[in-house]
């Protein structure tokens, strides 16, 4: 079976390390980027099967990254799970408008992330 690839864009190293561990344990191939610009370049050159995207990032926020992804053909339908400490309704609405697949607020349960990712890719 071919391993599914997920890119995690998260600037908190301890959180990305935990996510990487959980997903790797569940059979995913995980790449991590902490920087929005570098992440976009990686997404364009080699789109993964799914993306976990933090909203608040230095330089370029998650909304901006999502906007870019949805504007480009190779990543237009990429499943995106937005993980964020900002759980305000306005953020959810904007994320939905920009085409996010799932929206999850921090702190999250590990199993929830794994299950959300699985569902997104399966559907």
């Amino acid at each position, binding site marked *: 079976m071919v391993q599914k690839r997920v890119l995690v864009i998260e600037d908190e190293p*301890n*959180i990305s390390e935990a996510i990487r561990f959980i997903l790797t344990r569940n059979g995913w191939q995980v790449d991590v980027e902490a920087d929005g610009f570098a992440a976009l370049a990686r997404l364009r050159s080699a789109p993964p099967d799914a993306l976990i995207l933090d909203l608040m990032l230095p330089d370029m926020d998650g909304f901006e990254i999502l906007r870019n992804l949805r504007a480009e053909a190779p990543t237009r339908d990429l499943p995106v799970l937005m993980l964020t400490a*900002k759980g305000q309704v306005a953020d959810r609405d904007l994320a939905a408008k920009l085409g996010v697949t799932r929206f999850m607020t*921090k702190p999250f*349960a590990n199993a929830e992330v794994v299950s959300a990712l699985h569902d997104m890719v399966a559907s």
Partner: protein
Amino acid sequence: MSRSALTGTRIRARRTLRGIRQTDLARRVGVSPSYLNLIEHNRRKVSAPLLSALATALGVSADALVEDSDARLVEGARAAALRSDTDLGELERIDELIGRFPGWAAVLADTHARVERLERVVEQLNDRMTHDPYLGDALHEIISAVTSVQSTAAILNDDDALAPEWQDRFHQNILDDSGRLAEGAVALVNYIDSAKTGETGIAAPQEEVEAWLARQEFHLDIAERPSLDGAEAYLATQVELASGAARQLAATWLAQMYADAQAIPLRALRDGLAEHGMAPDVLAAHFACGLDVVLRRLAHLPPAFRTELGLPVAGLAICDMSGTLLFRRPVEGFPFPRFGGGCPLWPLYQALRQPHMPLRTKLVTAGRMGRRFTAYAMAAVTGPARLDAPPVLRATMLLLPEEGQGPDSAAIAVGASCRTCPQLDCAARREPSILVAGG
């Protein structure tokens, strides 16, 4: 019904309030009871001299009996009525209410004004919660740390076969994030406490002074000059000192710093430090001055001077006999509370029990990431000696950071304040900590 027509109603209300019979009041002011009765039923106008006599007899001002003095009550009661969902058919009888029950009407108007004030505060706080970038960042930092701790702890808990190197790594991550969490919580509590002053928009004078000193890294060049001439004009130009009380307080601290600089001039202090290092007791003997002078002087060194001699930033706290903190010079790792007293275990408070006895104590801040300090403290009598009066003491504590981190059995574990201290089994605890559930 116009208010001018209600003077009689108010006279009647005041009279009955005082339990004076109509005939008695009429006699006192020199009119017949029947005429007063007509006045009280607003069927006769009251002349100015009679109004004055009635006011005197009733023990109120004449203004209280005529319309304009009640304008505020009318507006307040009307505003309260209009805000109510109740259909008030009695709105047009508002004058009658005020005329007959001025006390109750005042309560109604004041309550309404208070509700409006509180609503404004709620709006401000709500706005702050929604849009305040600092609060947003602080909460984001805390949630990020909580997320990391929760996720990492779950991995450690769920995976029995976790390799030892991963276990070590995740334990370290949890330790780091717990430290971040504790610091974030303290910062947030301090910030939310500071928002409480937002109701008036004015910080306490002590905070204005501390903000002013903080901008100058707690060193005032002006205090090092030969005289304090021009100090008042200088203080008037300092933006942080917005209130007169703050400028007055700043002048007091400036005078104190000036006196300390006179006792130990900067050049001599530098030589003393070069010879003896940061040893307050030795320096006090060297300069033949009180330890409290040295403690204050060491906390107010010029930044360039500290850099040149490689000296650490020292924290300073000064309190009076009630334990109230009069002065706080914060130092990294030892945040002072903004409100209320500090940790009862601080040597600052121990010093008050033994005036003029210098104390040196090793401290470690409570928690796994505790920071270590050496505290020097002493309480001294302030002001002139007075007979037949309790002495007025002031305690001073200098905090010098030490190497190392984490619990230290040779040191006393202290907190900043009970609210932000994780040491639950502390005999000195006076209120629950916010760092634990139910706190």
